[in-house]
């Protein structure tokens, strides 16, 4: 079945695939995870806030982005970010933003919606008595969130947050639609240049499979360890 295929192409393009492609994918994943969790936690706090307009804005934003395809969101932000940039620096013309920065912005804004729902569940699972105890000691809202609620919520939801990050790692591949060179993009460029579609795409599939399988097994083990400690 695999006879007649030239898998040497993988050996030849190895550096390009990993040092250009996978490096882009990993950097984007890790930075988007960090930004997404921070922004997502903020959105969760907004959704749970007693200030109605704030809750409504956050809720609408999260629900809208969770209802449309990621591909569409990628297109949206690709065109929107230069205008946002112009508004921030008060320029007349749209600001040129590089591929990595535009993608980073997109993925932070998108994944934050999913991290938001996870953190929201986490925050809501903390017993009210904990919040009262914090307030009774004289802590204000931000102090009680920062020292009492969020540390506990984050610890509880860590496995789910990490699983979402594995999903993010896979989602990054969609920057392909803008011809950006992530791991899949790099493989596709080599495939087209050398005419080795089967070899390259099979290889990409195998790499992702092994990486995600190993990562999800690690998360499962972490989950088991946390469960014992509580």
């Amino acid at each position: 079945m695999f006879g007649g295929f030239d898998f040497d192409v993988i050996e030849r393009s190895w550096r390009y695939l990993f040092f250009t492609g996978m490096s882009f994918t990993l950097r984007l994943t890790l930075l988007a995870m960090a930004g997404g969790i921070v922004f997502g936690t903020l959105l969760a706090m907004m959704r749970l806030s007693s200030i109605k307009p704030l809750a409504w804005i956050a809720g609408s934003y999260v629900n809208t982005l969770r209802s449309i395809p990621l591909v569409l969101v990628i297109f949206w932000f690709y065109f929107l970010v230069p205008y946002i940039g112009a508004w921030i620096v008060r320029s007349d013309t749209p600001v040129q933003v590089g591929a990595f920065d535009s993608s980073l912005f997109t993925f932070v804004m998108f994944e934050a919606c999913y991290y938001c729902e996870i953190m929201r569940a986490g925050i809501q699972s903390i017993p009210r008595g904990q919040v009262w105890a914090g307030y009774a000691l004289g802590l204000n809202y931000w102090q009680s969130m920062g020292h009492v609620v969020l540390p506990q919520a984050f610890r509880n939801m860590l496995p789910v947050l990490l699983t979402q990050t594995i999903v993010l790692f896979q989602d990054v591949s969609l920057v392909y639609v803008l011809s950006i060179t992530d791991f899949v993009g790099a493989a596709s460029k080599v495939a087209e240049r050398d005419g080795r579609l089967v070899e390259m795409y099979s290889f990409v599939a195998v790499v992702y499979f092994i990486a995600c399988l190993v990562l999800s097994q690690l998360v499962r083990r972490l989950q088991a360890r946390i469960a014992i400690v509580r």
Partner: protein
Amino acid sequence: MIKISGVSKWYGSFQVLTDCSTEVAKGEVVVVCGPSGSGKSTLIKCVNGLEPFQAGDITVDGVSVGDPKTDLPKLRARIGMVFQNFELFPHMTVTENLTLAQIKVLGRRREEALAKGMALLDRVGLKAHAAKFPGNLSGGQQQRVAIARALCMDPIAMLFDEPTSALDPEMINEVLDVMVQLAQEGMTMMVVTHEMGFARRVADRVIFMDAGKIVEDTSKNEFFGTPRSERAQLFLSKILGH
């Protein structure tokens, strides 16, 4: 010290507190008792603004709790509260539980907060457990740490919301002993509890609540001797039975 005037509270259309009025003078120990659902926990949570109320007002040391302009965190730092479920912060050690609010709210330096925390921990007899996590302590130990945590803030009054209701019987006394000592040292205390033995020992006054209303508000001796309302008599006969 604590003045509750005409306080009423509704959850939606359901009225949980009806026109409650009473006073706790400086150094007084007032016990609040009553059947489940009588509103006693709700009332005590209104005193430091943890629960909002829709009518009436509460003042603590002259500061109004109901006034929207009041700096509630600042007021709450001056009132200590102990909860039924202890509510120690499980992700922090005992020491960190004791020093967090001192540092973040009162602005004390770390060494000062630590010294105070250890002194109070020693006072409740738990100095050896300073580095442990709440999960490693028994219920009675956790509650004593919770009392120490509240005392670290140098409060002008202490509120107790059923402090022994979640404890196994053999641990109730170790907590009550700490509370008795506190009362004898002159702390202003408002205690929601079923422990009538405690009330008889150190209370100055006893308040009996039923269905959101204060039904009896008399001196300890009068309450245990000749309670005026039937409801209070019924309640007393039931719980003093064991």
